[in-house]
């Protein structure tokens, strides 16, 4: 059972120029992205800056309207809606089923509100009565490992890690069907990051959460996600179960990303291949396969025809012309 099916999602921004502000080009921030999230599953969306991963998550919560495509969401059994086309009124009713955890715990919480009120706000919006709200706030604080006394204090009294816990409690207040976490641990120090990673793992187990985990850190992603989708210049280039993707990638870009991560072991120093070139500009993507100017396995055909995302093994998809013949290197 899937909770979310994204089909052919596109978000283009017009480039206007001249005295008449005519459209002279388009930034294809997201250009035909499809994936599904099953119930209880965590899918990670990874890629470098500008690849479109945050734009995808913003389209799903409808912080922006997609240019094309479908976002089929199942908030309750037997009900399916297309988030891509819903109007404001219908969206409001769906908010409780779809919640976000943000990157920066300092700007995500209203500094003038008490922590208890911050956590209770989604319930207030949904019309839960006050007594039930109070009980639920205590339950949620306990769930994320915060003392009950926290509810009567303001966010500034807490450290970054504690604020992130408060943000998570707020996101879980209405038992959402899907949680979208956009870089939830990247602003935190290592020792605190570990606590939040563990908390998310516990919550996945206890609440059977379905989650879209947007991140650039491949190490954190390996700990947290069941499947991984790798994006490059607005498209998914590979999607696979986590271990399979890390051990035996099927797209040269995935291989390059894995090779680039510094391994925390000085004995492995100097063993890695260093990817060449820079991330392509989504306003002027290279023709054909967008990765071809940086790909060490490039052949002439890539410059003309973009490779489709095709199933290369059960549950594994890759968008590469040569995926069948390449023996790509992963990390053990």
């Amino acid at each position, binding site marked *: 059972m899937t909770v979310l099916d994204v089909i052919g999602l596109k978000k283009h921004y017009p480039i206007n120029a001249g005295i008449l502000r005519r459209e002279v080009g388009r930034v294809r921030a997201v250009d035909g992205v499809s994936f599904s999230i099953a119930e209880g599953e965590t899918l990670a969306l990874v890629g470098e800056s500008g690849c479109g991963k945050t734009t995808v998550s913003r389209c799903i919560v409808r912080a922006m309207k997609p240019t094309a495509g479908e976002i089929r969401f199942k908030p309750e059994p037997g009900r399916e809606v297309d988030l891509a086309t819903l109007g404001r009124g219908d969206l409001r009713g769906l908010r409780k089923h779809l919640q976000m955890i943000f990157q920066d715990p300092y700007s995500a919480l209203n500094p003038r509100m008490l922590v208890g009120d911050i956590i209770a706000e989604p319930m207030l919006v949904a019309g839960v009565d006050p007594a039930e709200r109070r009980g639920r706030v205590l339950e949620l604080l306990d769930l994320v490992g915060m003392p009950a006394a926290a509810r009567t204090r303001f966010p500034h009294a807490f450290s970054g890690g504690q604020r992130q816990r408060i943000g998570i409690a707020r996101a879980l207040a209405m038992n959402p069907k899907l949680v979208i976490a956009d870089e939830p641990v990247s602003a935190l120090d290592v020792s605190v990051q570990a606590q939040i990673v563990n908390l998310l793992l516990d919550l996945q187990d206890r609440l059977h959460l379905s989650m879209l985990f947007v991140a650039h850190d491949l190490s954190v992603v390996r*700990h947290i996600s069941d499947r991984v989708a790798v994006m490059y210049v607005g498209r998914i280039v590979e999607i696979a179960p986590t271990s399979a993707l890390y051990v035996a990638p099927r797209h040269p870009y995935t291989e390059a990303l894995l090779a680039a991560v510094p391994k925390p072991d*000085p*004995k492995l120093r100097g063993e890695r291949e260093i990817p060449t070139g820079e*991330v392509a500009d989504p306003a002027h993507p290279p023709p054909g396969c967008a990765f071809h100017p940086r790909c060490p396995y490039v052949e002439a055909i890539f410059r003309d025809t973009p490779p489709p995302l095709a199933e290369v093994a059960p549950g594994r998809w890759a968008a590469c012309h040569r995926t069948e013949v390449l023996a790509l290197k992963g990390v053990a």
Partner: protein
Amino acid sequence: MRPIRMADRGQAILSVHDLAVQFPGDQYVVQALEAVSIDLQAGRVLGVVGESGCGKSVTARAILRILDHPGRIVGGRVVLDPGKPDEIDVTALARNDPRLLDIRGGRIGLIFQEPMTALSSHYTVGNQIIESVRRHSKLSTSAARDQAIKLLRDVGIPRAELRIDAYPFQLSGGLRQRVGIALALAGDPDILIADEPTTALDVTTQAQILALLRRLQRQRGLALMLITHDMGVIAEMADDVAVMYLGRIVEYAPVMELFAAPRHPYTRALLRSVPTILAAPRQRLATIGGAVPHPARRPTGCTFHPRCTEIIPGLCANEQPAPIAPGHAGASCFRVERALQEAAS
């Protein structure tokens, strides 16, 4: 366990001895650094690692005497060319001493996390590098321009003879950081301090910039002080490592030793809590309880004791372990001291 002498391996070209820095405020004084001692040696990379607020950037800024207001050095020395007849104590120089201006850029180059900190958006890349080249040499404008093009080529900027006339905002983040490195090298320094040079970059760009720093450091025999919060970057780059916590160095060791046998409880916990790309599915991380305290609320005794799982009752909460002596490796921890004493007796 045995104490390791680090100074054996070569003469330091910059020695920091018992450096202390304070930021006085209205209500309290923040002790940003306390008894910090490090050595930088030609041809070697010192990695300085720690979480935010540990004092790693303050150390770099104190060495260059560019502390933000109201920070001030309240103790210790920063000695350039220690032991030589013309050694200079940088902390003793007046703020407007011309030697200080020669040292900045001419002896010690600085690379920032965000290259736009060092670059102006009003001048071309070339203008800024040429200015720095001429500040530290007697080259003519046209010779300095040739030197700037050579520097840009050296840091891997394609078509350097065209890019020299570009403005920084016309370049990508990766190219901009390469320009930042070229600018840091323009005065031909023999010491380079890089403060989180790849933190703002994507992972594939980070790999390229780290490789570039490594190559330049080897070719020029630079003493490189690399500040980072990332244990992966330390493992990749450092020869020696200083681990900092709340303004103190808690452990100082050669990199292989640090990863194979970390001594300080904080180092051990930090290494275990790093997420790894080699993780098993759904693998939990070891955590360090609590959070780094606010610098105004420094714990008594060993500053790590409230988060430490191995405290010695009655000791760690009351007394401070001795700082790591200049030129030596070791850990600033009562447990480690005791283990060393027991091994010796």
